[in-house]
């Protein structure tokens, strides 16, 4: 059984317990760091598949895929964070999230696990840099000795790149 199948099951199980969703995160890797998103946003995890290009889109919007008859856009999270592009391989996954009633796929290096991170283990985002990164960070979660960067999916998907899209449309 592949990683993502196992995780899909974990996801289902965790989401079944409606009230217990709080504080549960799906973690995934980009390069050396681990990131987490709240599981209530996550619909499922699928393997990488053929992506249809869309013309005149910001580079991180890779295109659209067919998810069982529904056409959904996919975003390369690496490119979203202006990290170096990386060849997709068999560990590359698309995490399907549902934000504001729209399904969007997030391309990540690999998915890891579903984790419980209690609120008292989460630090607020760093205030050091006013730059790009921190708007997307919801907080930093301590799990044992490791730190997971917890993402604000809504900011990740919307805000800025909406402007970009309209700019692209006008340009």
């Amino acid at each position: 059984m592949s990683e993502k199948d196992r995780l899909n099951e974990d996801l289902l199980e965790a989401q079944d317990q409606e009230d217990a969703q709080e504080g549960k995160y799906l973690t995934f890797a980009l390069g050396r760091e681990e990131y987490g998103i709240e599981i209530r946003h996550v619909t499922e995890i699928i393997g990488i598949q053929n992506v249809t290009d869309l013309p005149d889109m910001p580079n991180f919007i890779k295109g659209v895929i067919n998810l069982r008859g529904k056409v959904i856009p996919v975003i390369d999270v690496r490119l979203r964070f202006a990290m170096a592009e990386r060849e997709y391989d068999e560990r590359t996954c698309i995490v399907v999230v549902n934000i504001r009633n729209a399904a969007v796929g997030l391309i990540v290096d690999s998915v890891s696990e579903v984790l419980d991170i209690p609120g008292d283990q989460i630090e607020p985002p760093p205030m050091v840099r006013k730059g790009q990164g921190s708007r997307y960070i919801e907080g930093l979660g301590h799990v044992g000795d490791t730190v997971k960067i917890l993402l604000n999916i809504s900011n990740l998907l919307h805000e800025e790149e909406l402007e970009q899209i309209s700019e692209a449309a006008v340009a």
Partner: protein
Amino acid sequence: MTGQDREEHLELLHGFVEEGLEMLEEVEPQLVEMEKEFAGGGAVDPDVVHGIFRLFHSLKGSAGYLGLETISRVTHQAETLLDFFRRGVAVLRSDHIDLMIRTCDFLRQLLENVEMRRHDQGFESEARGILEDLGRAIAAVQGGAAEEAPRPEVPVATEAQAAPPEASPEASEGDGLQLVITGDMVQQFQAESQELLEQAEEALLNLEKDISNAEHVGRAFRALHSFKGNAGLFGYADLERLSHQAETVLENVKEGRAAAGSEVFSLLLEVLDVLRSTLVRMAQGGDSAIPGLLGWISLLQEAAATAPVDAPPAEVSTPEIPAAVPPPVLDAAPVDALPAAESEATPAAEYSGPERRASQERRSGGDRRKDEALQRQSVRVDVDKLDTLLDLVGELVIAEAMVAQNPDLKTAGLSLDRFDRAVMHLEKISRDLQDVVTSMRMIPLSGTFRRMIRLVRDLAQKAGKKVELEIIGEETEVDKTVIEQINDPLVHLIRNAIDHGLETPAERAAAGKPEVCRVFLEAKYVGSEVWITIRDDGRGLNREKILAKARERELIAGDGPDLSDEQVWPMIFLPGFSTADRITDVSGRGVGMDVVKRNIDNLRGRVEVRSRQGEGASMILRLPLTLAIIDGMVVRVERARYIIPTISIQETLQPEDCYLTRTMDGQELLNIRGKLLPIVRLHELFHLGGAGRDLSRGLIIVVENEGRSLCLFVDELIGQQQVVIKGLSGYIGELPGVSGCTIMGDGEVSLILDVAGLFNLAQGNEGSQRRPAALPPPRRRGQAESEAMHIQIQA
């Protein structure tokens, strides 16, 4: 009976018969069951009694306003009898059940007769028998208190009066009334009321033109009267009072007791609007109170009293006395309480041969279609289910392509003859299925078109112009979505035509035209499209004004004298583009035409403008018949596949060098039969690589949009297929040059090209053209499938 009357009631009758038979079907088994239980010494289920009571009550209500007297009387009597058992005043006996079953049988007979012949007469002796039996039973359960037992001859009261006596016992008992008026019934009331008000409005408008026409008065009166009755039945007091007062005015006009000036008609029309808006509010969950009711009523009372001769005040209340009100029957002539005399002479003949008679009528010419329409069986279906069905058919088309074009089939050495035949068969079936589903969602344009009658009248009056509207092809059916979207464009186009296009009587006289302007509103099928045309015989579009405006807004380079009319006319649809010298409250702000373009784009349609100076203009709205599935050409460009809507494709050809011209800025032009068309390389447009590819290694597809053509260069033509349009995610918004996407047979997503958008894109890329002032912000979800809304003007 006039043909017009028949047509008006046709739909109502049809629905009534259907509903009635349905209810009988429901009740009869219950009665039979009850009888069995009775025989076994069991008790009576009060729910069943309620059920039967409801049946008779609803039938009575509908029959009353449809003028089906016999049904109305029988059901009233049966209802009266049942009420005793329902209230527990009397005990149900088996002979009562027997009587009920006989009543049901008779009602079925009557309903079937209505379906055949649109009336319920010719059963007078049977009716009398049943009524007498019912009367006797009533008298018996009342213990001989005969004064309350209505005699069969007493004509049934209208619903308005029938309601209160029923309401009171129920209210005291606390379990009846809610059961009687169901949500379904309220919905039905809404639908019927809208229809009735529309009828009344149409009749009023006709009446205004031809004041002496008694038929129009009668129709308006009947429609209002029925509306009043319905409102009364449902206990909507304000609606009832207002419509009652309007009815009184009409009555007085009819009788020549009140002045019939245009103010009266304007007032009545306004009252109709008030009623209508109240209905709309109720449909949205509001209450039935009419703000300013007393004001309206006093206005109406004034109107009713502006008598050319003295109007005795007592007459004002005449319609309240049911006997004085001609029941709203199909026949224009009032029907006596017992019109038995002539019918009874031949009841047997009529009864034995309804079918023969119906077929005779069918053969007899003009009525043929209507009769068939009446006899058509139908089922009411939730719109959501239809939408789901349409979606499923879309999925089916995709799945079919997945099978037919399955990559596994490419395995060498397979013999696929039989498979191909089976696929062809499957394709045929799914195409048929698509047609059926599409047709299920079709609604005639008549309702939308008829609303324009009123609009034209009001606008013409305001503008001081004389306008006659002629409606052609209102029976043309279009998809439900089209009906929803087409109203606003029509309103704007008609406003525009009347306000700007048409001349005043004086101007027309000077131009040697007839004083009365004519506006045509026409719908027809052309190929796989519906064309809705708004044509007027006014002054036509002013080319110079449009060009001046375009120059002012820097939309064109130079003076633009070399632009063809086909290129000039579409400019009026640009946002904010109004050539009106002054802004009236009707039009001139330059918003309307933009709305037209946008809505038509949403429907994947196109607007064509034709105009001749001094002779008038036509706006043709060309809409596709289906909205979800299109015929498309699949092309390959590098590794990507795109769909080009077949409707936009003029031809495909292999380009030859000798017909090629290359300008110094790199634009390639292809000479096709003397016309130089720009070539757009999709490779470059969509940044796919393959730049500078030799044109002989690919294909040219000539596409057309709004009178302009261009050549698309692609690598390969894969084939033609039906594609199901899917919107790009709302997240993506609008993509220039792309109208949506579809899922191909192999499960991959392909983009559907938006030809109008490609024109824009191509010109934008050339950098030789200014783009329109502003592109719209990313679109809402679900709109992405529409074509780009902007028109670029080609110099």
